[in-house]
C-alpha cells in the first residue's frame, strides 16, 4: 500500500516537474513574437480542421508602421484578406463584397506584447518540446498546456534560427488536436511590394465596419468576466454586415480570445438562431437577452464560451 502510494506520488511529482514553465520556453515565445513582427516572408500553409483542409498563401512585408500582410485562400473561390497598420480588408468574390475594418488608432488592434508573455505562465505551463524539421526548417517545439479546462492548449513549432512560426496546433484537454496550421513552403527574406497589391474589386459592394470606442455599461449592459484569466481588452461599437450596429467586447487571457457581440434582435424569425456551433477550435454561442441577440465567438472550449455568454445581463438604468 505504502509502496503504491509512494509510486503514485513519485509519478505525480515527476509529471508535475516535467510540466513546469521554463524561462527558455518563454524566451522562445518572445522570439516568435519578434519574428512575426520583423520578418518579411511568403509561403504556403495548410489549415486542417476535422477532415477538412484548405491551402492558403501568406505574404508579409515588414516595415515601419507594422508593415503589410496578405492572405490568399488557394482552394475554392479566391478569397483574400489584406492587412495594413490600421486596416483589414476582406475580399469575398462570391458575394462581390469588400469588408473594411478600419481603425483610426492602430493600437485598437490588441496584441500580445513581449512583456506580457510572462503573464501567460499563470494560465499555461509553457515548456520546450522536441526539435522537428518542417517544410525544410529545423524547428523547436514549444508547448502551452492549459492549467484548467477553460482554455485550449497550443503546440507551436518555430524555426530554430529565425523564430518564424512554421506550425501551430490547438489541442483540447484530452490532447486531441482541434485544428492545425502548417507551412508546406516558406521563403524568408525579400518580398516585393507587388505581391501585396489588392485584388481587382471594381464595382464590388463595400461594407465599412465604422469602428468607434464604446462603453456598454453606460447603456445598462454587463458581462461579468468570471472566467479566471479572461479580462476585457477591448470594447467597441461597429457595423456588422450592412448598417447593423453591434457592440463588441473582447476578453482574453493573453492568447485565447473570446468576443461578445450584442445587437438588437434582427427582424424575421429565421434570423435568430439560439444555440452553439463550432469550427475547429472556434466556438460560437448565441442567445437572446432583453430582446437583443448575444453572440459569443471564441477560440476556447464550448463551455467557456457559453459561460461568458451566460453572464451577459441587461439592467435598464
Amino acid at each position, binding site marked *: 500500500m505504502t509502496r503504491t502510494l509512494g509510486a503514485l506520488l513519485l509519478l505525480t511529482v515527476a509529471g508535475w516537474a516535467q510540466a513546469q514553465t521554463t524561462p527558455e520556453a518563454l524566451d522562445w515565445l518572445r522570439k516568435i513574437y519578434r519574428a512575426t513582427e520583423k520578418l518579411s516572408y511568403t509561403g504556403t500553409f495548410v489549415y486542417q480542421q476535422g477532415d477538412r483542409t484548405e491551402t492558403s498563401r501568406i505574404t508579409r512585408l515588414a516595415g515601419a508602421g507594422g508593415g503589410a500582410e496578405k492572405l490568399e485562400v488557394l482552394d475554392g473561390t479566391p478569397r483574400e484578406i489584406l492587412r495594413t497598420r490600421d486596416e483589414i480588408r476582406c475580399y469575398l468574390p462570391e458575394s462581390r463584397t469588400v469588408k473594411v475594418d478600419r481603425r483610426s488608432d492602430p493600437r485598437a488592434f490588441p496584441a500580445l506584447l513581449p512583456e506580457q508573455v510572462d503573464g501567460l505562465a499563470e494560465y499555461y505551463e509553457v515548456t520546450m518540446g522536441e526539435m522537428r524539421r518542417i517544410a525544410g526548417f529545423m524547428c523547436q517545439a514549444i508547448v502551452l498546456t492549459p492549467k484548467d479546462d477553460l482554455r485550449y492548449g497550443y503546440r507551436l513549432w518555430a524555426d530554430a534560427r529565425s523564430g518564424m512560426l512554421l506550425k501551430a496546433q490547438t489541442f483540447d484537454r484530452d490532447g486531441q488536436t482541434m485544428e492545425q*496550421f502548417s507551412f508546406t513552403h516558406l521563403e524568408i527574406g525579400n518580398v516585393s511590394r507587388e505581391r501585396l497589391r489588392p485584388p481587382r474589386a471594381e464595382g464590388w459592394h463595400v461594407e465599412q465596419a465604422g469602428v468607434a470606442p464604446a462603453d456598454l455599461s453606460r447603456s445598462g449592459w454587463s458581462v461579468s468576466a468570471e472566467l479566471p484569466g479572461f479580462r476585457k481588452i477591448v470594447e467597441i461599437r461597429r457595423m456588422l454586415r450592412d448598417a447593423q450596429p453591434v457592440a463588441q467586447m473582447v476578453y482574453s487571457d493573453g492568447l485565447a480570445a473570446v468576443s461578445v457581440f450584442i445587437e438588437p434582435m434582427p427582424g424575421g424569425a429565421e434570423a435568430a438562431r439560439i444555440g452553439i456551433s463550432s469550427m475547429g477550435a472556434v466556438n460560437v454561442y448565441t442567445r437572446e437577452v432583453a430582446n437583443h441577440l448575444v453572440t459569443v465567438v471564441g477560440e476556447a472550449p464550448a463551455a467557456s464560451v457559453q459561460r461568458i455568454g451566460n453572464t451577459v445581463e441587461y439592467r435598464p438604468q
Partner: protein
Amino acid sequence: MKAKISALMDGELDAHELNEPLSALGKDAEAFETWRTYHLISDALQGRALLANDCLRRVVARLADEPILIGPLPADVARPERGRWFVPSALAASIAAVALVGWMAIAPQQNSSPMLAPVAKAPQPAQVALRAAPQAPVRLPMTAATRDYLIAHQALSPRNSLQGMAPFVRSVSAESHPGKP
C-alpha cells in the same frame, strides 16, 4: 427482428435503422428476451463473469427509485466514443442491457434532436424520468452570417501577434459559408 437485434448489438446498423429495433426492445417482450439471450450468449462465449439472475430486476427497481437526469450532449459530438455516454457501456453486460438501450437511443440523435435526447422506454416497472439541463444549447451549423462575427473577432485576437494573419483563414473558410464552396 432477431437479425436486427443482432446487428444492433454488433453496432452494424446505421443511424436511421436504429429506431425500429430500439422501440421493439421497449415494447416487445420477445424482442427484449432475444436481446438478453444474445448478450448471455456473447458473455458466455467471451468468458465474462455472469451476474446474479435477478440482477436486471434489481437494477430496474433501483432505476425506478432514482430519476435519471439526461444532460446536454457533450460539446465534442464529433467524437462520441470519447464522450461521457461511453461510461454506461463499460458496465457489466446485464446492467448495460438497461443502460445501453438508453445510451444507444441517445447516440444516433446527436444531430436530429440535440436539445433533449430521448431514451427508449425501459422495460416494465422502470419509470425513466427525463429532464433537460437548463440552457442546454442546440447545436447549429456555421452559416454565412457567422463569418462576419469571425472576421470581427479575429481582427481583435492577440494571437495575431504570434501567428500573423494565418488564423484569419478560419473566418473566410469555405465551411463558414456552406453551399458556396
